[in-house]
């Protein structure tokens, strides 16, 4: 479904509804990990790259299909906009296509850095007030209007809180909690230490909790 546009600068939310779809009685660690490509997949990527460089440009679609979802989630998490995320993804894959002969090592890590830089460039240049935003078309899977409204409120509040974070903290939080990456994979992709990234994620959590706890605790 498509949600109405809203003014990011006016993220105020009305009262919470009592019914939540989460089962609060079970304590389950939230961690999930984005799978790291195996050696076979890396070889398969290289085979596709070789095909594209030999002139089969349609083969590039295999790489888009293989890696666009985590990249889209990253761009969406960083920008809070489905439209901008699509735009960044398109520009990044086109850049990747034109520079494909420069790939050394993992294609997924290389293209991730292109997308991540695209997000940072966008953040540098955007005027951050009164940003229009449209929800993605993903089905929620929820059942009642109250649950849909609750979800919409948390979505908007989380977007508003994320937009207040410095870029490096937002990036670390999104990679950890939205993309579900391990600290080790984040360190590899961002060329930073595990300790530094843990610190960024922890600082991001503390800032987000400060912003959200009055409303949701």
């Amino acid at each position, binding site marked *: 479904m498509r949600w109405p546009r809203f003014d990011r600068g006016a993220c105020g939310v009305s009262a919470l509804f009592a019914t939540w779809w989460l089962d609060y009685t079970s304590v389950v660690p*939230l*961690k999930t990990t984005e799978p790291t490509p195996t050696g076979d997949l890396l070889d398969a990527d290289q085979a596709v790259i070789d095909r594209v460089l030999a002139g089969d440009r349609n083969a590039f679609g295999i790489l888009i299909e293989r890696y666009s979802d985590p990249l*889209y989630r990253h761009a969406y998490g960083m920008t809070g906009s489905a439209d901008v995320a699509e735009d960044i993804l*398109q520009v990044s894959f086109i*850049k990747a296509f034109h520079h494909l002969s420069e790939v050394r090592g993992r294609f997924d890590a290389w293209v991730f850095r292109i997308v991540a830089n695209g997000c940072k*460039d966008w953040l540098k240049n955007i005027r951050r007030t009164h940003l229009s935003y449209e929800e993605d078309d993903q089905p929620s899977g929820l059942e009642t209007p109250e649950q849909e409204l609750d979800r919409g409120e948390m979505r908007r509040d989380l977007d508003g809180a994320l937009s*207040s974070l410095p870029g490096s903290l937002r990036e670390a939080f999104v990679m950890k*909690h939205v993309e579900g990456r391990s600290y080790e994979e984040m360190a590899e992709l961002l060329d930073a230490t595990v300790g530094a990234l843990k610190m960024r994620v*922890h600082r991001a959590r*503390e800032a987000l909790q400060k912003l959200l706890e009055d409303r949701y605790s």
Partner: protein
Amino acid sequence: MMQDSLDPRDAARDPLTEPRSGPSAEPVAGDREVPLAGAEIPSAVHAYLDGDAVSDAALSAAQREVELWKRIGAETGRRRRMVTPAHVQAQILAKLADD
């Protein structure tokens, strides 16, 4: 709309893949800063959120924080299941074909 970086420090970098301004450098220009003296989160909650083993007793002592992070986790979990809109791949390939 994508825009090229205006940061002059980016000129000497690989424009495609080199990190912009370093991951630990100053915040991205244009970010609205929040006071980073955020809420204090018990270490057990950080460990829980990192997927480490945490005792039930430690989590019970931080029930308020745990419940907040479960709500946040429900939203981040939904985003983790997002997929690229179907038309994006076709648009990319169409643009490449036009080149």
